[in-house]
């Protein structure tokens, strides 16, 4: 009972907390033909533990936005707060980034790839080698790749590589995960399976996720809320709450609600020139 009460309390606290807050963010970058406005007046608020998906046409600045949220790119005007504080530089304790599959280091085994972020802390951290190894192994197990730790990336399938990539993003246990089209390079079937897997992992870790994709089906399937961005300069032109119950199942894709949500996003996207 105590456990249930704790869970309920945590759930409450989570909903009150804001993980990411972006206010009036605009960004102009210097192109070859002068200044190009990339992002225009972006405001968004992501509650802790929520799964938010951003969709939009190519070149709308989705990735720029994500890089700014990660502290990997200097931001323009406006404010970005991550758990209440600005994020001018990458901070792996607060934000983990998961890239496309090709970002694994081919000279490291799956396990060493997962351990890489921990090993960077090296002397700055009291954790011993064994403890780091244990944590990397726990992550490998979490993403369902037990026994594949000694394989090199080129010996793994696309889906397995992406699992390793997710494990690497989770290993430092950051409260926020940013994912930049992580499944874009996968075939359709693997992509669906990986989406489902991601939801399973997400439900056991209670992370806040901001996920970028081109796939409308993927967006609706994964999200608590879908943000639709316009073509350059990127603005948020619609915010669509997804009220489908969790856990999600493949059958839901065939429902009317799912179809309507997907249609609404599509109508918004095709409006943009």
């Amino acid at each position: 009972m105590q456990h249930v009460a704790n869970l309920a309390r945590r759930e409450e606290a989570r909903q009150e907390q804001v993980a990411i807050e972006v206010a009036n963010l605009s960004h102009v970058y210097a192109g070859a033909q002068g200044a190009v406005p990339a992002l225009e007046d972006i405001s968004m608020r992501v509650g802790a533990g929520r799964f938010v998906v951003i969709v939009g046409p190519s070149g709308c600045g989705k990735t720029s936005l994500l890089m700014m949220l990660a502290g990997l790119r200097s931001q323009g005007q406006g404010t970005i707060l991550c758990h209440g504080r600005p994020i001018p530089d990458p901070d792996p304790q607060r934000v983990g980034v998961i890239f496309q599959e090709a970002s694994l280091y081919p000279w490291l085994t799956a396990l060493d790839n997962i351990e890489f972020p921990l090993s960077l802390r090296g002397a700055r951290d009291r954790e011993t080698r064994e403890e780091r190894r244990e944590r990397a192994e726990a992550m490998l197990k979490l993403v369902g790749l037990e026994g594949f730790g000694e394989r090199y990336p080129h010996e793994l399938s696309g889906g397995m590589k992406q699992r390793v990539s997710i494990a690497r993003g989770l290993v430092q246990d950051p409260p926020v995960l940013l994912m930049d089209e992580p499944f874009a390079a996968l075939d359709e079937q693997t992509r669906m399976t990986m989406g489902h897997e991601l939801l399973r992992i997400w439900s056991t870790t209670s992370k806040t996720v901001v996920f970028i994709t081109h796939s409308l089906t993927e967006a609706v399937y994964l999200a608590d809320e879908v943000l639709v961005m316009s073509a350059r300069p990127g603005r948020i032109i619609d915010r669509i709450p997804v009220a489908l119950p969790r856990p999600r199942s493949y059958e839901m894709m065939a429902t009317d609600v799912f179809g309507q949500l997907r249609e609404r996003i599509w109508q918004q996207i095709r409006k943009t020139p």
Partner: protein
Amino acid sequence: MKIVVARLALLALVLAAWELLPRHQIVNPLLLPPLGDVLGMLGELLQRPQVHLAIGVTAAEVVVAFVIAVPLGAALGVLIAENEYLGDVFKPVLFYVFSIPKSIFLPMFILVFGISFAQKVAYAAFTTTFVVMLSAAAAVESVKQDYLLVARSYGATRTQILLRVYVPSMMPLLLEALRISMIFNFTAVMIAEMYASRAGIGHLIAGWGENFQMRQLFAGVILLAAVAILFNETVRTLEARCSTWRT
């Protein structure tokens, strides 16, 4: 396995032809002495103090030139790859110069350094630096931006990015650069020695050629070929180890 057998068969065929064709006067033995005679001469040459001295001189030239050219070329290569401005300015010029046969500069090296050890080293280092520089620049540029982004997102320091991302990522290309630059380096020393010198294997070979001492000449060729192949294969073995993660 079949491939290995075929290769060995090819080698045996060539060696047998080298032995038998001159032996039976099908090929003029004055121009191509039989393999057995050449190997006998090689054994004899390796006894001579004069040859020992020549090997020592050549080896020293090759090593010193290599030790100068590799770090110098690597540093310059990294510089033009990493610094966009320097790269834009120097790269086209370097590509132009790279396309010129370096041997035409040999007379200038003789004028500056005289016919000496320093002249061989300077000329070989000059030639080799270009190869190393362009290979090193290519190696730096081969590092995927994604790899750097990942490391940065996990809070890697500049030193960590250099040692943990750049170095392993460039390793296969660097080893290849090392191997190819040694080929150029060795060639440059040989050309310099054969062109004008008083010592070294190249000098001996040029002399044997001029005096029509074909057994000595071919013995020298076998000796050099053996050394060159040995170095090449050693580095290639290292490369093969890295090739598991080569992308």
